[in-house]
């Protein structure tokens, strides 16, 4: 312990001494300085007059955006491919196998370049953009789509949506309690669907449909108006999703194979239908095997998102790098990077551990 403390002391002392010699100012005060640059993509309000601290926040939200959407898509894709590999259909299982072997054995950076240079960069120029349904346009500048413009009472629709979700949770709990107690089932899925779609729709119509769209139109240089998802985000998002999905597919397959065949046979012997057997017997047990390694894949995806810099996506590392370059505050920026990624990883772990505990076999 003392040795470790001395080691840390020595490192810190050495650093401080070298910084002093190199005449480099230190501390976190620079975060309040004017940034003076414009990031390529921003989810929150940002101008070149905003501070460095806010620029880091822009980077953080961009990282979160690609991580969350990437995790969502990779999970769905991974489950589809993983189950596909066990399909009795020769074509489906071979295709899934080829997918997994291909993406699992290529470095993620190459997958990103593949999407960026190989797929998105060869799309037509903005002026000859491909027209898609709903006034969407696809070009090498990204995907332009109409952006919604909300009217005065539009927030009520969101309120109704949240109420519907809360009501659905209550309903689901009540129905499972009733089933435990009396054995009677209630058409939960259908009622929830009606609630979540119907209630907001009703409010939306009652308030006079306060929604219009801002359509993209061809301007002098680009399509103007509407919203644009740039090729930087798309390539990173697609690459991370496809890459991680290959690993998730294998985890899913391992999880399902890991449930002993006796379980299925026992369920069948009890007269439970095959679809219910999968849902009530196999999947809950497979989840216990799937969740822990799935957590590491989520962490990997989040961390791999820092490869954004290769295609110029304005994530935390890219913007941090710009700030580092302007202010020369290497140590402070690197510290912020470490703290942010560490916290993200720990938070993901905590959440997944909680989820795992919930799914774990409760011994009675």
């Amino acid at each position: 312990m003392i040795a470790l403390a001395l080691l840390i002391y020595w490192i810190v002392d050495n650093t401080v001494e070298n910084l002093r010699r190199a005449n480099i100012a230190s501390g976190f005060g620079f975060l309040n300085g004017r940034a003076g640059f414009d990031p390529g993509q921003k989810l929150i309000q940002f101008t070149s007059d905003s501070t460095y601290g806010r620029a880091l926040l822009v980077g953080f939200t961009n990282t979160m955006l690609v991580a969350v959407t990437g995790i969502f898509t990779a999970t769905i894709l991974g489950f589809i491919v993983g189950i596909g590999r066990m399909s009795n259909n020769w074509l489906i299982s071979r295709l899934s196998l080829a997918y997994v072997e291909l993406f699992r054995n290529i470095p993620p950076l190459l997958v990103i370049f593949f999407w960026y240079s190989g797929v998105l960069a060869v799309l037509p120029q903005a002026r000859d953009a491909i027209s898609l349904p709903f006034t969407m346009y696809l070009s090498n500048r990204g995907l332009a789509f109409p952006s919604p413009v909300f009217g005065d009472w539009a927030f009520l629709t969101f309120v109704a949506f949240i109420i519907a979700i809360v009501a659905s949770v209550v309903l689901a709990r009540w129905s499972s309690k009733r089933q435990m107690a009396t054995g009677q089932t209630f058409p939960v899925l259908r009622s929830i669907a009606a609630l979540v779609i119907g209630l907001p729709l009703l409010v939306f119509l009652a308030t006079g449909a306060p929604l219009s769209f801002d359509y993209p139109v061809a301007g002098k240089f680009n399509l103007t108006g509407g919203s644009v998802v740039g090729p930087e985000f798309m390539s990173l998002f697609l690459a991370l999703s496809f890459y991680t999905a290959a690993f998730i597919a294998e985890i899913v397959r391992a999880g399902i194979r890991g449930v002993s065949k006796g379980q299925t046979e026992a369920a069948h012997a009890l007269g439970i239908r095959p679809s219910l057997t999968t849902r009530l017997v196999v999947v809950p047990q497979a989840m216990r095997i799937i969740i822990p390694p799935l957590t590491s894949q989520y962490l990997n995806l989040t961390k791999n998102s820092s490869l954004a810099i290769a295609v110029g996506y304005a994530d935390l590392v890219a913007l941090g790098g710009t700030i580092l370059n302007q202010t020369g505050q290497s140590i402070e920026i690197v510290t912020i990077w470490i703290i942010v990624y560490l916290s993200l990883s720990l938070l993901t772990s905590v959440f997944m551990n909680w989820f795992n505990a919930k799914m774990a076999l409760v011994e009675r």
Partner: protein
Amino acid sequence: MRDGNERQQKKVLKMAKKILAALVGAAVMGIGTHGASAATLDDVKAKGFVQCGVNTGLSGFASPDASGNWSGFDVDYCKAIAAAIFGDATKVKYSPTSAKERFPALQSGEVDVLARNTTWTINRDTALGFNFRAVNYYDGQGFMVRKGLNVKSALELSGAAVCVQTGTTTELNLADYFKANNLQYNPVVFEKLEEVNAAYDAGRCDVYTTDQSGLYSLRLTLAAPDDHMILPEIISKEPLGPAVRQGDDQWFDIVSWVHYALINAEDFGITTANVEEMKKSPNPDVQRFLGVEADTKIGTDLGLGNEWAVNVIKAVGNYGEIFDRNIGAGSPLKIERGLNALWSKGGIQYAPPVR
């Protein structure tokens, strides 16, 4: 069995602790391991070469050929410094750095001098801990667009997608210029020059902005150079020059004076071809400059040999020769001397006297 294992584990742990303690002890004793030492010249002489930070590949300024030999305007400055110290222009090792990597590379002592199209600004001169003095290229930021867009001025660029390299003064000037003129733009930002080139060439953006010298150089690398034009506006002052770390005046003097020697040589009309002849010149200024004056200390005061200027000119020629060969009339770039002509010929390249 289990007990045995545990005992063994404890033993290993104890040993690890001892090793760690020894390491820390050694480290604390050897506090002398503090970063780069102050006397860069001594370090350079001891290792036998100059470690020079250059661009990753900007033709005319610094780019490697197929067999890995570097050439260019900035590269010639590295060679000149090596020639001044060792009398041998080959004693240079190049560190290609991106715009973002260059400052930490110099701060940490990984490179001895940064000759990489770097703009001298107050922030870099103070907060970043560098020293600038010699300006080897007076530049300004410009814009390049496709001719097909029919744009005649930068003020017509509202709504355009602009490709720019991150970590440069360019990025900041761009934001300021568009803000000041109330124009909208979408920045498309990359870390490496090659990535910006590829993106512009592929049509990811309408406009490419960087220093004008860079635009001339980059235009040559595009698929169809003649389809692109450089707009007349210059929106900033970009004095480019070699940078060194603060706190080593001797090294700073050497780097600065190598540049001044190149300018003075052009002033005197000394070239690679006639430098030996010029030693016999009756002009006392030239004699002093070339270190042939009796009892001269012209080099030793700098920590170099008295023939340092001769060696520099033999290796790379004078400023005019370097300019013409790499970026001027004798190169594919064909950049005009403009501001970079000698002070006596309508430019602002001026060097203090060697006296």
